[in-house]
C-alpha cells in the first residue's frame, strides 16, 4: 500500500515545528515544556503509526526544471527506526520532565532534542542519498549540542568535540562514498534519479547491475569501505568506539535517547539499508569482522568500567557490534539478527539508561563500587533492571536471548558454508569470537543487575523514591521488553506474538535483496543445535566465572592502562599534536586580515576559475561613445581611489574615499539614474558622518607599513579588482533576448485610458520606485527583512553578549 504523503509530512515537519516553537512555549510553560515536547513526539508516533503496513516512495517536487526533488521512502526498516525515534522520544521527554528539574539551559535542551528527533526521522525515511546525508549530519550536530549541554565543564567540551570530530569525519567519508555511488548509478539503466537509493527506480532495485558497474569501475571496495566508515563512526564501532563513553557527559535522558536507542542506530540503519545493494563476500568479511571485533572488545571494556553509565556506553557499542555482525552475515539469518536485535536492544538498553538515571538521581552516585542492595528502596526499578539486564545478558526467556541465538545461528552457518566452499579454516574464528564476546556481555549484565541486590554499602546514604515521571517511562520499556520475551515462550507452544513477528519480518525484508520474502518467527529452542550449545556455553562459562568478576575486572583495567592499546591514546595524541603544530598559527591567526585575505582570494579564485572553466570570452571595451563629462567624473574617481591608497592619515583617507563615492553619485546622475544617485549620496553622507565619529577614537596617523605586507595587500586588492571588473564586463555584455525593461516601462506608468482604480499597472512616474514597491515588492520585502535581521544580530552580539543563558 502506498504511504500517505500527509502522514509522512507530519512525521518530518512536526518535530522541527515543535523545536521552533519551543522558545515561545518555554515562556508560558517553563519546566513543563517537557510535556509539550512529549506531546509533539506522541504526534509523530501517531503519524508513524498511520504509516504502518505501507511501503513506497513519496516524492516532493522541489525544482522540477532541474529535476531536483525530495524523496522519502517508507518500509519496515524505516518504520522501525521511526518508531524508535518517536516512541522512545515520548518516554524520554516525559522522563526529562522529572530528571531535568532545576537544571540549567532547558530551553536549549528541549529545542535541540526535538530537532534531533526530526533529523533522526529524516534519516529513517530519506530515500535519496543527499537527503540521507543532510539529516545524518544534522543528528551529529544536535548530538554535539546535547553532549555539550553543561557547556562550562571541561569534560563536556572535550566529549562534545570528540563526538563531533569522529562522527562528522565519518560522515564525510560516507559522502564521498555516496558521490561514487551516484557516479556508478548514472551508468546503470533503470536508475531514474542518480541519487535515489530506495523505491522504484532506486539503486536498491537494481543491486546486481549496480554491483557489476561498481566492479567494472574498480570502485566496489572503496564504496564499501567509505560507507562502512560512516556507519562505524556513527555506531561507535572499534576503533571509533571511543566517543561513546565520553558522550555520557550528556544528561541521562540524552544518553538513553541518542546514545542508545536512536542516533547510534543510524550507523546500523545504514548497514541494514545498504545490505541488499552491497552484500557480497567482501561485505561479510568487512562487517562480520568489524561487528564481532567491536562486540568483543567493548564487552571486555564494559567489564572494566567503574561507572554505571560508562558500563552501559560500552555495552551499547558492543550490542551495536552484534547488530553489525548480524547484518554482515550473508544469509537471511543475518538480516533476521540485525532487524530483531535493533528492536530488542532499543527496548532493554533505553530502559537500563533510564534506570541508571534514576540510580544516579536518587542515590547520588554512579560509581559501581559504591552501589548495592538498591532493590530495597527502588523495588519497581529493580524489577525493570532484572528484565532488561537479563535480556542484555542473553538469558532465556528474555528478549535479548532470541536475537543473540539468531546471531550464533547466522555466524555458525556462515562459517560452515564458507569452509565447505573451500574457504580458510579461519572462518571458524567467527563463532568462537561471538561466544567469547558474549561471555563478557553476560558478566557485565549480571554485574549491573547485582547493583540492586546484595548488601547495601554503609556509605550509601538515603535513597529517595523517584518521581512517577521518571519510573513510568522505564517501566513501560521494561514491560515491552518482557512482552517481547514472553512472546517467544508462547511462540514455542504455537501462540505467536503476531504483530511483533510481522513487523520484524517487514524490517528484515528491507535488508534482503529486492523482492525476497522470508517468514519470521521466534521461539525457545526445542532441539539441540550447535547454536543452542553456543548459548549454553556462554551462560555456563559466564555463571562459573562471575564469582571472579573483580579479578577479571582488575586485569581488564591493567590491560586497558597500556597506552598503545588504547584508541583514546591515539586520538588524544593526534589532537594534541595538531593543537601544537605550527600550521594552526598560520591558518588561525586571530587577525581579521588573515581571514579577509583568505576569503577574498578564495572567492576570486572560484569566480575566475568558473569563467575559465566555462570559457567565457571578455567583451571588448567601448570607450568611444562616452560623453566627455562622464570621462572627467570617472577620471576624478580614479584619482580619488589612488589618493585613498596613498593617504597618510585616517582623515585624509576618509575624505578621499568620499570623493570616490560622490563621483560615483555624479556618474549616476549623468547616466540618468537619479534614484541611484540619491541613494548613493545619502549613504555616502551617512557613512561619512559615522566615520567622523569613529575617527575621533582612532590614532590620527597610520603607522609605517613594511614593504612585504604592503605588497601582499596590493596583490590581494589587484586580484579582487580584476575579478570584479571581469564580472561586470561579462555580466553586462550578456544581454538577454527578451528584454524585461520594455515590459517595465510599459506597465509602470499610468495608462492613458484607465478606471479610477486599477491594479494592472504601477501608475507611477518613477519606474525604479514602481519596480521596488510593486513589480519586485517581494524582493524588497526580503531585503527589509534582512535589514531588520541585521539590527537583531547587532543587538544580540553587543547588548546580550554578557547575558548568557541564565533566564
Amino acid at each position, binding site marked *: 500500500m502506498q504511504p500517505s504523503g500527509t502522514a509522512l509530512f507530519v512525521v518530518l515537519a512536526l518535530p522541527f515545528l515543535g523545536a521552533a516553537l519551543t522558545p515561545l512555549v518555554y515562556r508560558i510553560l517553563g519546566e513543563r515544556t517537557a510535556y509539550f515536547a512529549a506531546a509533539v513526539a506522541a504526534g509523530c508516533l501517531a503519524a508513524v503509526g498511520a504509516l504502518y503496513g505501507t511501503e513506497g516512495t513519496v516524492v516532493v517536487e522541489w525544482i522540477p526544471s532541474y529535476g531536483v526533488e525530495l524523496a522519502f521512502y517508507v518500509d519496515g526498516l524505516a518504520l522501525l527506526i521511526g518508531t524508535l525515534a518517536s516512541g522512545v522520544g515520548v518516554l524520554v521527554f516525559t522522563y526529562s520532565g522529572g530528571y531535568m528539574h532545576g537544571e540549567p539551559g532547558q530551553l536549549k535542551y528541549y529545542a535541540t532534542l526535538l530537532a534531533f528527533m526530526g533529523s533522526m526521522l529524516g534519516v529513517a525515511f530519506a530515500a535519496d542519498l543527499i537527503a540521507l546525508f543532510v539529516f545524518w549530519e544534522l543528528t551529529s550536530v544536535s548530538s554535539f549540542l546535547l553532549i555539550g549541554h553543561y557547556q562550562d565543564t571541561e569534560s563536556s567540551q572535550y566529549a562534545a568535540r570528540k563526538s563531533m570530530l569522529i562522527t562528522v569525519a565519518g560522515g564525510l567519508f560516507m559522502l564521498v562514498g555516496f558521490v561514487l555511488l551516484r557516479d556508478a548509478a548514472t551508468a546503470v539503466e533503470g536508475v531514474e534519479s542518480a541519487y535515489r537509493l530506495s523505491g522504484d527506480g532506486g539503486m536498491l532495485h537494481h543491486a546486481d547491475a549496480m554491483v557489476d558497474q561498481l566492479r567494472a569501475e574498480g570502485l566496489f571496495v572503496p564504496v564499501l569501505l567509505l560507507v562502512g566508515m560512516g556507519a562505524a563512526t556513527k555506531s561507535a564501532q572499534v576503533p571509533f568506539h571511543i566517543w561513546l563513553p565520553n558522550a555520557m557527559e550528556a544528561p541521562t535522558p540524552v544518553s538513553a535517547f541518542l546514545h542508545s536507542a536512536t542516533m547510534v542506530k543510524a550507523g546500523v540503519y545504514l548497514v541494514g539499508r545498504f545490505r541488499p545493494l552491497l552484500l557480497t563476500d567482501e561485505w561479510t568479511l568487512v562487517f562480520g569482522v568489524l561487528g564481532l571485533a567491536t562486540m568483543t572488545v567493548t564487552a571486555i571494556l564494559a567489564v572494566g568500567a567503574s561507572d554505571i553509565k560508562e558500563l552501559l556506553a560500552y555495552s551499547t557499542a558492543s550490542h551495536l557490534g552484534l547488530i553489525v555482525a548480524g547484518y554482515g552475515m550473508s544469509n537471511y539469518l543475518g538480516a533476521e539478527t540485525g532487524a530483531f536485535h535493533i528492536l530488542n536492544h532499543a527496548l532493554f538498553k533505553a530502559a537500563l539508561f533510564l534506570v541508571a538515571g534514576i540510580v544516579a538521581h536518587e542515590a547520588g552516585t554512579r560509581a559501581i563500587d559504591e552501589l548495592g542492595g538498591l532493590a530495597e528502596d527502588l523495588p519497581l526499578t529493580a524489577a525493570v533492571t532484572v528484565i532488561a539486564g537479563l535480556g542484555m545478558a542473553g538469558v532465556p526467556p528474555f528478549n535479548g536471548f532470541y536475537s543473540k541465538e539468531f546471531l550464533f545461528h547466522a555466524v555458525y552457518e556462515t562459517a560452515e558454508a564458507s569452509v565447505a566452499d573451500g574457504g580458510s579454516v579461519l572462518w571458524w574464528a567467527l563463532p568462537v569470537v561471538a561466544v567469547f564476546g558474549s561471555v563478557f556481555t553476560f558478566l557485565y549484565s549480571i554485574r549491573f543487575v547485582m547493583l540492586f541486590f546484595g548488601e547495601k554499602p554503609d556509605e550509601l546514604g538515603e535513597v529517595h523514591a523517584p518521581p512517577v515521571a521518571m519510573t513510568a517511562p522505564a517501566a513501560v520499556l521494561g514491560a515491552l521488553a518482557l512482552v517481547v520475551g514472553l512472546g517467544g515462550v508462547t511462540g514455542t507452544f504455537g501462540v505467536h506474538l503476531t504483530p511483533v513477528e510481522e513487523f520484524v519480518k517487514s524490517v528484515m525484508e528491507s535488508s534482503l535483496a529486492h523482492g525476497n520474502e522470508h517468514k519470521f518467527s521466534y521461539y525457545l529452542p526445542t532441539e539441540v543445535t550447535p547454536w543452542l550449545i553456543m548459548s549454553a556455553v556462554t551462560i555456563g562459562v559466564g555463571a562459573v566465572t562471575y564469582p571472579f568478576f573483580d579479578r577479571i575486572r582488575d586485569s581488564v583495567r591493567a590491560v586497558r592502562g597500556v597506552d598503545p592499546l588504547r584508541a583514546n591514546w591515539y586520538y588524544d595524541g593526534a589532537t594534541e599534536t595538531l593543537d601544537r603544530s605550527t600550521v594552526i598559527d598560520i591558518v588561525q591567526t586571530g587577525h581579521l586580515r588573515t581571514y579577509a585575505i583568505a576569503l577574498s582570494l578564495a572567492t576570486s579564485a572560484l569566480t575566475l576559475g568558473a569563467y575559465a572553466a566555462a570559457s567565457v570570452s571578455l567583451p571588448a571595451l567601448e570607450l568611444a561613445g562616452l560623453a566627455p563629462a562622464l570621462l572627467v567624473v570617472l577620471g576624478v574617481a580614479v584619482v580619488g581611489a589612488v589618493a585613498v591608497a596613498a593617504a597618510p592619515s585616517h582623515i585624509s583617507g576618509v575624505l578621499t574615499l568620499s570623493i570616490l563615492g560622490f563621483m560615483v553619485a555624479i556618474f549616476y546622475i549623468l547616466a540618468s539614474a537619479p534614484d541611484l544617485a540619491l541613494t548613493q549620496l545619502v549613504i555616502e553622507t551617512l557613512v561619512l558622518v559615522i566615520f567622523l*565619529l569613529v575617527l575621533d577614537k582612532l590614532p590620527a596617523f597610520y603607522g609605517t607599513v613594511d614593504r612585504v605586507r604592503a605588497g601582499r595587500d596590493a596583490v590581494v586588492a589587484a586580484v579582487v579588482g580584476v575579478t570584479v571588473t571581469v564580472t561586470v564586463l561579462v555580466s553586462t555584455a550578456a544581454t538577454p533576448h527578451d528584454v524585461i525593461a520594455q515590459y517595465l516601462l510599459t506597465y509602470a506608468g*499610468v495608462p492613458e485610458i484607465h478606471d479610477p*482604480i486599477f491594479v494592472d499597472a*504601477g501608475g507611477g512616474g518613477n519606474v525604479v520606485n514602481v519596480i521596488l*514597491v510593486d513589480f519586485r515588492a517581494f524582493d*524588497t520585502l526580503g531585503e527589509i527583512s534582512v535589514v*531588520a535581521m541585521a*539590527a537583531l544580530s547587532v*543587538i544580540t552580539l553587543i547588548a546580550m553578549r554578557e547575558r548568557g543563558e541564565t533566564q
Partner: protein
Amino acid sequence: MTLDREPTVVARTVTRLVVPLILVTAIALLFQGHNLPGGGFIAGVLTVTAFVLVYVIFGLDYLETELLDREPSARYETESGIIREYGQVGAVGLAVAAGSGIAAIALGYPFLTQSVAFVEPLPVYDSLEVASALVFDLGVYAVVVGALLTIVAEVGAE
C-alpha cells in the same frame, strides 16, 4: 558616541538648523517617491542621517533628555528605553509591509499586488493619485529607520 572635545558653536547651530530641514526633505522624498526620485529606502537613510547628526553633535542622551524630556535609558538596555522603541518602529514597519501584501490576498489578488486609485474632483488639487504601494513604502521606511537607528544607537553606546 560623543566627540571627546566639545563641539563648536558653529557645529551646534548648524545642526539645529539642518536637522529639521533634513527630516522634512526625507518626508518629501518618501511621499513623492512614486512619481519622482525618492522612496522609502532613501527617505529612511536620510532620516537616520539626521538622527546620527544629533547623536554626534549633542551626544547619545540628548534626544531623550532634551526632546523627550525623560531619563536617558541605560547603555545596552534592550528590554526598555530608546533602543527598544527603535526596534518597535522596525517591527511595525515590517508588519505594515507584509500586511499590505496580505491585504491584497484578502481582496483576492496575489500577494503584494498593488493598486492605484484616482480621487477626483478635489478642490485645490483637481485630482489626487493614491497608490497602495505607498503603504508598502511606509513599511520600508519604518524598517530602515528602526533597524539602522538600533544599530547606530547600539554601536554608538559601545
